[in-house]
């Protein structure tokens, strides 16, 4: 059906729901690339006004991508919980924004509505919210997950220590991991993006990380971010796999581009759980997403990139993940052109993920062909800490020498601890003190011998 708004005698008409959503989306290069963005700021506002008046129920009546053609749409429809939805079922998108912002809408109320919300409803409301609106609501919604420690507790910030190396060299990976540990990074996960997809390398990398974790008794988890099929093979070979990783997107076709479907993800989830390496009931999956992934695979079906991103969260939440992060500035300037677009997208992704019940983190990052720099990352990180982000990713000196992009530095994690007062997961915080890295107040104080001499004691990398 068509939607209309009149602004000073000019009638703006939007042919269907996906057009309305696309035109209502704050400006970004990816929607312009797809040819679905608003013509200009006035048309965008007209779309936002029409969207604000739309009942949330409308999203249950009109699918953006038909369930007949797409298993992600089918999943969204099957998982929608009418009882949970009843708290907001009479609201328009605009009233839903106001409901979210009210102080009476507490954490518990937000949690109760989680499975009543579809990705499209959440994407829609985010489009008519400012950064401050989204931060205020996100800050109320905690999503807590566990493996060997507890991630997402109020007032805390975890970090993924990302010790990538261009050739997956064992010594290089360990050196980088130790550099991060010395700065207190790694309670979300110590996770390597492998340069190759060989099972042998996957097994070597997880074994290496597991030895480091085990010998130093670090209450954290490790991960090699290879493809799920590689993880399944490694598990069959008895490798010490804590977390099973996969990139996911918001349509069946886009997931096909990643070499996965829901059945394969289910198989991977079961394989991960079968190892029982975390505490009972531990979350074992780790997903990455990012605006533009579906469009880059020509699998967006005319739906705007932010709505496609939120649809990916429906895939992620099906598998009770420990960690989910958007790789917000990684996908490139053709999707998010500059610092302003990256910052908005980072706040949107975190907000939408949290409302859908995901343990949401953000890879605060940019590439060298985007119009962005480290100051934009300072801004996004500070805003995300205000929003209560579960975790961010840190690398030595903000320079990932394998993936060739800039993420945060381990130093930035120190800034969050010391200036923004965001300690890590409690188990990890205690370990930092016990091993001699931090003092009683949590301030970094030294370089304990256990870490600096680790390389000499490792069985897997040799001296």
């Amino acid at each position, binding site marked *: 059906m068509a939607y209309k708004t009149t602004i000073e005698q000019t009638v703006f008409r939007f042919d269907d729901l996906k057009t309305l959503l696309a035109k209502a989306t704050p400006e970004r*290069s990816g929607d312009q690339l797809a040819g679905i963005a608003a013509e200009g700021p006035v048309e965008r506002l007209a779309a936002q006004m029409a969207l604000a008046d739309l009942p949330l129920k409308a999203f249950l009546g009109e699918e953006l991508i038909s369930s007949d053609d797409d298993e992600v749409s089918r999943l969204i429809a099957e998982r929608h919980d009418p009882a949970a939805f009843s708290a907001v079922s009479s609201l328009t998108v605009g009233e839903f924004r106001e409901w979210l912002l009210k102080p009476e809408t507490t954490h518990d109320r937000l949690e109760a509505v989680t499975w009543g919300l579809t990705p499209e409803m959440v994407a829609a409301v985010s489009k008519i919210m400012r950064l401050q609106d989204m931060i205020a609501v996100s800050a109320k919604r905690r999503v807590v997950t566990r493996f060997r420690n507890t991630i997402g507790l109020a007032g805390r910030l975890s970090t993924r220590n990302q010790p*990538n190396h*261009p*050739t997956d060299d064992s*010594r*290089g*990976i360990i*050196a*980088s991991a*130790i*550099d991060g540990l010395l700065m207190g990074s790694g309670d979300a996960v110590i996770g390597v993006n492998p340069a190759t*997809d060989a*099972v042998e390398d996957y097994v070597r990398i997880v074994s290496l990380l597991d030895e480091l974790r085990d010998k*130093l*008794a670090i209450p954290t988890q490790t991960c090699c971010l290879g*493809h799920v*099929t590689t993880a399944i093979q490694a598990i069959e070979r008895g490798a010490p796999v804590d977390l099973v990783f996969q990139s996911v997107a918001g349509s069946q076709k886009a997931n*096909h*581009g990643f*070499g996965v479907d829901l059945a394969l993800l289910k198989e991977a989830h079961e394989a991960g759980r079968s190892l029982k390496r975390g505490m009972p009931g531990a979350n074992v999956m780790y997903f990455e997403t990012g605006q533009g992934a579906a469009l*880059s*695979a*020509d699998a967006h079906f005319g739906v705007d990139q932010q709505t496609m991103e939120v649809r990916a969260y429906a895939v992620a939440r099906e598998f009770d993940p420990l960690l989910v992060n958007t790789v917000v500035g990684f996908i*490139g*300037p*053709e999707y998010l*052109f500059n610092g302003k677009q990256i910052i908005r997208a980072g706040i949107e992704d975190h907000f939408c993920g949290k409302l859908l019940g995901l343990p949401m983190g953000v890879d605060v990052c940019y590439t*060298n*062909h985007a119009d962005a*720099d*480290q100051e934009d990352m300072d801004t996004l990180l500070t805003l995300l800490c205000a929003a209560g982000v579960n975790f961010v990713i840190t*690398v*030595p*000196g*903000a*320079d*990932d*020498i394998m*993936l*060739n*992009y*800039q993420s945060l*530095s381990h*130093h*930035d994690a*120190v*800034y969050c601890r*010391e*200036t923004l007062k965001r300690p890590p997961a409690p188990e990890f915080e205690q370990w930092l003190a*016990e*091993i*001699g890295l931090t003092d009683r107040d949590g301030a970094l*104080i030294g*370089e*304990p*011998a*256990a870490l*600096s*001499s680790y*390389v000499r004691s490792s069985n897997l990398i040799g001296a």
Partner: protein
Amino acid sequence: MAKVIEPAAAEQVLDLKDMTDARVSLGRHGAGLPTRAQLSFLLDHARAREAVWTSVDRAALTDRLNGLGLSVVSIDSMAGDRSIYVRRPDLGRLLSAESTDRLKQTGAGKGYDVAIVVADGLSSSAVELNAVPLIEALVPKLTALNLSAAPIALANQARVALGDPAGHALGAKLTIVLVGERPGLSAADSLGAYITYGPKPGNPDSGRNCVSNIRDGGLPLGQAAEIISGLVRDMMKTRVSGVALKAAVAKLPSSTV
């Protein structure tokens, strides 16, 4: 749980810098980097941005490849210039009509096995430094596998997926796209190799195998040529590429592996 350990004596402090090119052991003042490290990072960022915006010297590359006895064909994507290319990856994946015709003529009746496409991607320095030596190492390995190679296609304003229409127009069974990877701060000269069996427009990315970080200090060129030719051999045997390749190789009778 680990017990409390005294901070190490100075001579025990490990030099992590000897183990990786990552920016480890930078030191800090509070959460801040030392001033020299801070400014050095900014200089590297400025350089990387320049690398993205510089063009490949195709005439010089052609001379060098001709010098190896290899013929060359120049092709262009649908992205007219660099600023369009950066914003419009879709155009960087499409072959211009003129280039399509040129490749069809080049490939007509030849039945090439392999098409090598050199794409500028996002780093001209990667292509200028590493493409020719990699091709020099790779071509004899393809010959040893009894595979015929089409003239090298030098592609401007080109993304990885341009290899699909290019290989298809040449009528090749498989394409090897050598592409300038997005420059990082420390390495602006990484070349990536993307190998696809059955190139045709619309192939999904999961249908490719990738060998990345090919450069001095990354994956050495000789080793990269070895890995690429191994993948090519497996793909020619299984007629499969991408994430399904490993399973397909495992199903081959052991005598053929």
